[in-house]
C-alpha cells in the first residue's frame, strides 16, 4: 500500500467513524423508544440511496481528465477540510460547545416520545428519523469516499475503509447498547480536518499545474505542518480567552511580557 493509499484509508476510516457515531445515536434513540424494525428499515433505505449515489457518481468522477479531477477534488477537499478544521479548532479552544452524544441522545429520545402514537406496521416517525439521520451523516462519507477514491483511482479501497469504520462503530454501539459518548469526537474531527486540508492542498496545487518539491514526499511535510498550525491556533485562541477573562492588571502584565 502506497503512502497516499494509506492516507486515503486512514482519512476515510476516521471521517466515517465520526459520522457513524452520530448516526448511531439517532438510530439507537428511535429504536429504543419506538420501533427497532422501522428504524432498521430507515437505515437500510438510506444505505441503498448512498450506495446508488456512490455507484453513479464514482465512475462519472473517475472518467474526468486527471488534472481537472485533481483541481475539483483538491478544491472541494480543501473547502470541506478547512470547515472541519475550523469547527474543531473553535471547539478545542472553548469558543464552540463540544458535541455531546449523551445530550443529543436525550434530545432524540424526548422528541421520539412526544411524536405521537406508534403506527401499526411500519412506524413512519422511526423510519423517517433513521433514514434522514443516516442519509445526512452518510452524505459526508460518500463525498470523502468519492473524492479520495476517484483521485487515487481506488474507490474500492475507500469504500472498504468506510465499511470497516461503520462495522466497528455499530458493533461497539450494540455491545454497550448506548451512545458512544466516550469516543473523542473532536480529536477525530481535528485529525480528519488536517488530512482533508493537506490532501486538498496537495492535489489542488498539482491539478492547477504546480509541482511540489519532492513530489509525493511533500505530503510528509504538509500533514505535520498543517497539524502544527491548527494546534498553534488552538493555543493562541486559548490564550486570547484567558486574557479576555483576566482582570485588567493581569492583562497589562501579559501584554508587557
Amino acid at each position, binding site marked *: 500500500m502506497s503512502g497516499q493509499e494509506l492516507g486515503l484509508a486512514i482519512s476515510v476510516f476516521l471521517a466515517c467513524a465520526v459520522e457513524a457515531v452520530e448516526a448511531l445515536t439517532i438510530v439507537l434513540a428511535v429504536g429504543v423508544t419506538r420501533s427497532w424494525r422501522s428504524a432498521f428499515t430507515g437505515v437500510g433505505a438510506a444505505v441503498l440511496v448512498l450506495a446508488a449515489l456512490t455507484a453513479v457518481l464514482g465512475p462519472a468522477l473517475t472518467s474526468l481528465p486527471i488534472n481537472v479531477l485533481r*483541481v475539483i477534488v*483538491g*478544491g*472541494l477537499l*480543501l*473547502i*470541506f477540510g*478547512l*470547515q472541519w*478544521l*475550523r*469547527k474543531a*479548532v*473553535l471547539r478545542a*479552544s472553548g*469558543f*464552540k460547545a463540544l458535541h455531546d452524544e449523551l445530550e443529543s441522545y436525550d434530545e432524540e429520545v424526548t422528541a421520539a416520545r412526544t411524536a405521537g402514537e406508534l403506527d401499526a406496521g411500519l412506524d413512519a416517525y422511526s423510519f423517517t428519523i433513521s433514514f434522514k439521520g443516516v442519509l445526512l451523516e452518510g*452524505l*459526508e462519507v460518500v463525498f470523502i469516499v468519492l473524492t479520495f477514491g476517484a483521485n487515487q483511482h481506488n474507490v474500492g479501497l475507500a469504500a472498504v475503509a468506510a465499511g470497516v469504520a461503520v462495522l466497528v462503530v455499530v458493533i461497539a454501539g450494540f455491545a454497550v447498547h448506548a451512545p458512544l459518548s466516550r469516543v473523542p469526537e473532536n480529536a477525530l474531527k481535528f485529525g480528519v480536518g488536517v488530512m482533508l*486540508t493537506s490532501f*486538498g*492542498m496537495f492535489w*489542488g*496545487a498539482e491539478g*492547477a*499545474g*504546480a*509541482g*511540489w*518539491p519532492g513530489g509525493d514526499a*511533500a505530503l510528509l511535510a*504538509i500533514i505535520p*505542518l*498543517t497539524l502544527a*498550525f*491548527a494546534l498553534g*491556533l488552538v493555543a493562541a*485562541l486559548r490564550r*486570547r*480567552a484567558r486574557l479576555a477573562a483576566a482582570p485588567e492588571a493581569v492583562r497589562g502584565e501579559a501584554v508587557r511580557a
Partner: protein
Amino acid sequence: MSRVEAFLRFLWDFVVGDDWRIAVGVVVALGVTALVAGTSVAAWWILPVAVVGLLGVSVWRAAGR
C-alpha cells in the same frame, strides 16, 4: 420554503458551511496557483499560504463574536 429552495440551502450548507469566505478564498487561491504555474515562478506555496490566512482569519473572527 419550496423543496428546490430547501435543497439549494442544504447544498450551500453542505459544501460552503459556516464561513463562505473560506470557499471563495480557496477558489481564488486555486485560480492564482493556475496563473502562476503558467509562468516560470514556482506556484506550490500559494495554497499553503492561503490556508494559513483563511483558517487563521476565520477562527479569529468567529472567536471575536
